[in-house]
């Protein structure tokens, strides 16, 4: 009796295992070679349709190769990709995120491979200015950012800029073709707009639900008070760098003042980043300060002729700055069986003429500095010019949340507290610097 029951149990277990094994085999047999890519460029309009189309093209030119491109939102991709790669059943090629939270981790755990070989093979070194490559460089221990081999490569330029509703400016008696060229002038314009607009309409449509809205928006203000190189050094953990400088504290005070004066829609913490772009595209607010990767959303809503694009203008120093850099870095998994094929796909989606045409058609600025926007698209020319203005002044601040694994959450919380009047500018600067120093110690 006993042994029979036991036998049944064992048999059941064997059958279950067999089914499980069969299922996983069946998945692999579907195509001779399947490459899985993970991306958080899930904006449509935006990069998502570009990547999908390019992958289809790639499949056509490579018979027997299937590209399985998976789109996730930013937070869930960076939250899962290290363990997915470590498990061996993760993506072959994936986006990471520059900085200590994600890329440092992937490098240190040897989950991705250096791209040195492919940089040489495909002449990728010609894509970006030498200083731009810093955001892809890590020493193999994942400790030093900005030096060492190259581990990633990006598709588009990213720039957080001010979009403005020209029609609304005209209605309010402001000439949209004569926008202020200094931060002080920009600040005055916002105050002027606040006085003219009805109380329930924001000057700046803003969405901070995910927590990066204010990280991005603040870049334009910080850049007016602090040198871009100072901000970058802090991100790269150059010894002696500080966040709690008088300039940054004054910039934080300015942001808090904007909040108190009611420049933003009061539901910014409940509204998503892209959703706020959509609201702006529907006519809410005069400005939207956010990533140029959302420019198609805005163009679609307001019509190209009604939208102006410019970086937040410079402070007394006169150099144009903005939060930005290049889009998410693409990495090749250390566990993929087809690294060369992965690199070939990357080369195709980043450097081919077809890729650039498709990116421009979605109002995305290719990271390849040799790419020329097509003539006859003044809107795209504005977006492109805004990026060039900053890039030529070497004013891309990169993203401050790259500076430590917990910096994203720290900044998210501190900005929310600051804007709610529950934190002082100096208190926030100190809290951010404390996070930085706590992590900095682990690097020495």
């Amino acid at each position, binding site marked *: *009796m*006993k042994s029979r*029951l*036991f036998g049944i*149990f064992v048999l*059941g277990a064997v059958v279950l295992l067999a089914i499980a094994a069969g299922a996983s085999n069946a998945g692999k047999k579907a195509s001779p070679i399947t490459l899985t890519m993970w991306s958080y460029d899930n904006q449509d309009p935006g990069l998502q349709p570009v990547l999908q189309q390019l992958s289809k093209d790639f499949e056509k030119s490579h018979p027997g190769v299937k590209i399985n491109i998976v789109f996730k939102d930013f*937070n869930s991709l*960076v*939250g*899962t990709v*290290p*363990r997915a790669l*470590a498990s061996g059943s993760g993506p072959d090629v994936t986006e990471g995120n520059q900085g200590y*939270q994600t890329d440092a*981790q992937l490098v*240190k*755990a040897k*989950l991705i491979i250096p791209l040195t070989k492919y940089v040489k093979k495909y002449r990728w070194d010609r894509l970006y200015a030498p200083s731009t490559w810093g955001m892809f460089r890590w020493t193999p221990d994942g400790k030093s950012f900005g030096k060492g081999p190259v581990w990633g490569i990006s598709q588009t330029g990213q720039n957080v800029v001010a979009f403005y509703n020209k029609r609304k400016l005209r209605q309010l008696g402001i000439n949209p073709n004569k926008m202020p060229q200094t931060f002080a002038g920009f600040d005055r314009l916002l105050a002027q707009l606040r006085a003219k607009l009805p109380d329930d309409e924001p000057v700046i449509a803003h969405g901070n*639900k*995910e*927590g990066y809205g204010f990280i991005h928006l603040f870049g334009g203000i910080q850049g007016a008070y602090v040198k871009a190189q100072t901000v970058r050094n802090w991100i790269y953990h150059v010894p002696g760098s500080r966040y709690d400088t008088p300039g940054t504290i004054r910039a934080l005070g300015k942001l808090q003042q904007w909040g108190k004066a009611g420049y933003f*829609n*009061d*539901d*910014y*913490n*409940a*509204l998503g980043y892209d959703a706020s772009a959509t609201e702006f595209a529907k006519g809410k607010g005069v400005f939207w300060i956010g990533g140029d990767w959302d420019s198609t959303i805005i163009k679609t809503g307001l019509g190209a002729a009604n939208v102006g694009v410019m970086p937040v203008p410079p402070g007394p120093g006169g150099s144009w700055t903005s939060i930005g850099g290049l889009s998410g870095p693409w990495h090749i998994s250390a566990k993929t069986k087809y690294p060369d094929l992965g690199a070939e796909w990357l080369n195709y989606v980043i450097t081919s003429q077809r890729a650039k045409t498709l990116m421009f058609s979605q109002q995305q600025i290719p990271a390849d500095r040799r790419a020329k926007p097509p003539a006859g698209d003044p809107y795209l020319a504005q977006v492109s010019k805004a990026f060039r203005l900053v890039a030529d002044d070497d004013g891309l601040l990169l993203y401050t949340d790259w500076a430590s*694994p*917990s910096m*994203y*959450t720290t900044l*998210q*919380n*501190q900005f*929310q*507290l600051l804007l*709610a009047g*529950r*934190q002082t500018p100096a208190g926030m600067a100190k809290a951010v610097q404390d996070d930085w120093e706590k992590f900095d110690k682990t690097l020495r």
Partner: protein
Amino acid sequence: MAVDEPTAHAARPDPAGPGARRRRRRPGGGRAPGDPRNIGWLYVLPGLAVYLLFTLAPLLHTVYYSLFDWDGLTGKTWVGLSNYGEALRDEVLRDSFVHSAILIVYYAVFPVIIGLLLTAALTRTVIRGFRFFRTALFLPQLIAGVVIAQAWTWIYATDGPLNRALELVGLGSLVRPWLGDFTWALPSIGAIGSWVTFGLCMVLFIAGVQKIPTSLYDAARVDGAGPVREFFAVTLPGLRDEILVAFVLTTINALRSFDIVYNTTAGGPGGETLVPSMYMYQNAFLYNRVGYAAAIATVLAVTIFLLAAIVLRVGSRGERT
């Protein structure tokens, strides 16, 4: 009081119930049919194996990880109990437990009260479409947390139905971005929790009420008890076990709540809705501190265990034997 004695009698589990009488125990030695035999172990083996493999083993593994400084990928460093020391000093973690305590009111106390009221209403009067209401009110239990979170995010939105309704009834001054408001974000999440769990309490209580002999209700009525008196004298004591089960389940739900918080506020604004499970997630998957996250998980598990034990202990106190 006439109804008191039989009530306590009914609340006692099985042995006093009519079903128990069938099973007669022979006095002294010998095994009656139905008494445990060793073969019983074989019957529970599949379940036990699954439990050991998928519940107990990961649990012990988590405790093991909590003794290391580990990023989840590269080498581990033994740090003994220092993760627990940090957990004790960590103000963020302390705040998150305070938030959880507030959520327990919404996830456990309110649903039990609402469930009892609904049970009293649904059992006392004959309601047309009773089954429909019972199913409809239980439905939130069956919906995935992510879906619930999305639906409520929409309901709470600045131009969402809740604010529209407030404007319609002339309460426009209350309109606010509920989930983005420092004061209201946590109660707003709590309200979602109440909505999700009260159906479970109600179904438990309705099932429990059917177990209370109708003779008790008849006796109460003969003694002249009104609906309120009847509820407190018969229904409430009769539901003691169900209320305990409901409290334990919903308290555990409150402490474990992650999906709704993650998908509505992600702990914001400014950390006002951060709960331990969310903080654990951040440490494990965003800050690359798996060891510390495991320590938080262990602290959370112990807290849940203790709370459940306290609820059961307090609840069964005063039960007559």
